[in-house]
């Protein structure tokens, strides 16, 4: 005996009720539960669907599906970090490395022109970050609306559009500069090697922010199809 469409839908509802909000995790769980229930029916054909489901759910242990969701999040976070690295490494090859060096020189120029340069630089970076944050917020609102309309929620997609671990990465350059400034001494009075290294770190941080907010989100569709072979089947 096989599960009918309505029972499959009930299984999706069941997983959602048990805090599995991501469709990619739900798919696997639904198939597993369905197979297990069908196997139970081979031995006990009279067993009600609900009872068979409860028997299978108990096999997942006291924490239910939580462990599975947590591990999935960890695995996806790892995949996401790898993706950022993959993009960042591209900036260490020609011709992109020239951009990296040019930006480093611009920031070097700002920092070495006394403390006022650092302040101007901080203001510029802050403005860029606010712009990115507003853009990100708009995208998030748009996605939220789509979800309300019934769009399926994919874990990796959410990670991509929520900028991975959050917006904190954008604040790094600011925090970094203010930390250096907080000592009371003018950064420009430090050695040129120090300023060059500092400039390069600030550029790297900005690049990571750019990769997370623009490059990866632009290619989201490709990455989602690579990550989820089922993505095309259900969308």
């Amino acid at each position: 005996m096989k599960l009918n469409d309505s029972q499959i839908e009930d299984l999706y509802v069941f997983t959602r009720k048990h805090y599995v909000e991501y469709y990619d995790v739900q798919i696997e769980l639904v198939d597993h539960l369905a197979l297990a229930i069908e196997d139970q029916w081979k031995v006990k054909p009279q067993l009600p669907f609900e009872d068979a489901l409860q028997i299978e759910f108990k096999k997942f242990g006291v924490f239910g599906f939580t462990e599975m969701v947590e591990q999935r999040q960890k695995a996806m976070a790892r995949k996401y970090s790898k993706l950022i690295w993959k993009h960042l490494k591209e900036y260490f090859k020609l011709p992109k490395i020239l951009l990296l060096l040019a930006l480093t020189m611009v920031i070097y120029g700002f920092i070495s022109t006394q403390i006022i340069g650092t302040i101007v630089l901080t203001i510029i970076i802050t403005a860029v970050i606010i712009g990115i944050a507003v853009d990100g917020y708009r995208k998030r609102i748009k996605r939220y609306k789509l979800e309300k309309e019934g769009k399926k929620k994919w874990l990796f997609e959410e990670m991509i559009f929520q900028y991975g671990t959050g917006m904190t990465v954008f604040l790094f350059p600011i925090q970094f500069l203010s930390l250096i400034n907080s000592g009371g001494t003018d950064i420009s009075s430090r050695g040129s090697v120090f300023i060059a290294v500092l400039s390069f770190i600030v550029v790297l941080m900005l690049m990571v922010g750019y990769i997370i907010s623009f490059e990866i989100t632009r290619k989201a569709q490709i990455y989602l199809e690579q990550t989820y072979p089922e993505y095309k089947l259900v969308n």
Partner: protein
Amino acid sequence: MYIYIRTLGMSTSQLYRGSLTTIILKLLEENGEMYGYEITQRVKELTQGDLNIKEGALYPSLHKMEAAGHLTVTAKKVDNRVRKYYDITPAGKEETVNRLAELDEFLANMQRIINPKLSF
């Protein structure tokens, strides 16, 4: 490897926990692509019911191995639902060799400790 599992006995043993990855890799290497439920059933069958892989442990392991590049995933529409199949990658095959070697070494050492006479 299957003989080793039978020798260890005890279906709920902690001993199996560390070997779950090895079991999955070896199964996929021998059988080709498999889905989660199939893995649990195959293990049960091979061990004649001695070893039941907990669902709560199986999927996290599969996802971890996938993220590490040891497994690839494909999806197929079967009946009225989508099924995800896991298959071993070349990196996964290398990992299997290493893990089996480690397991062999572990078992040999355990034998020496438990039954010293056999080692002479």
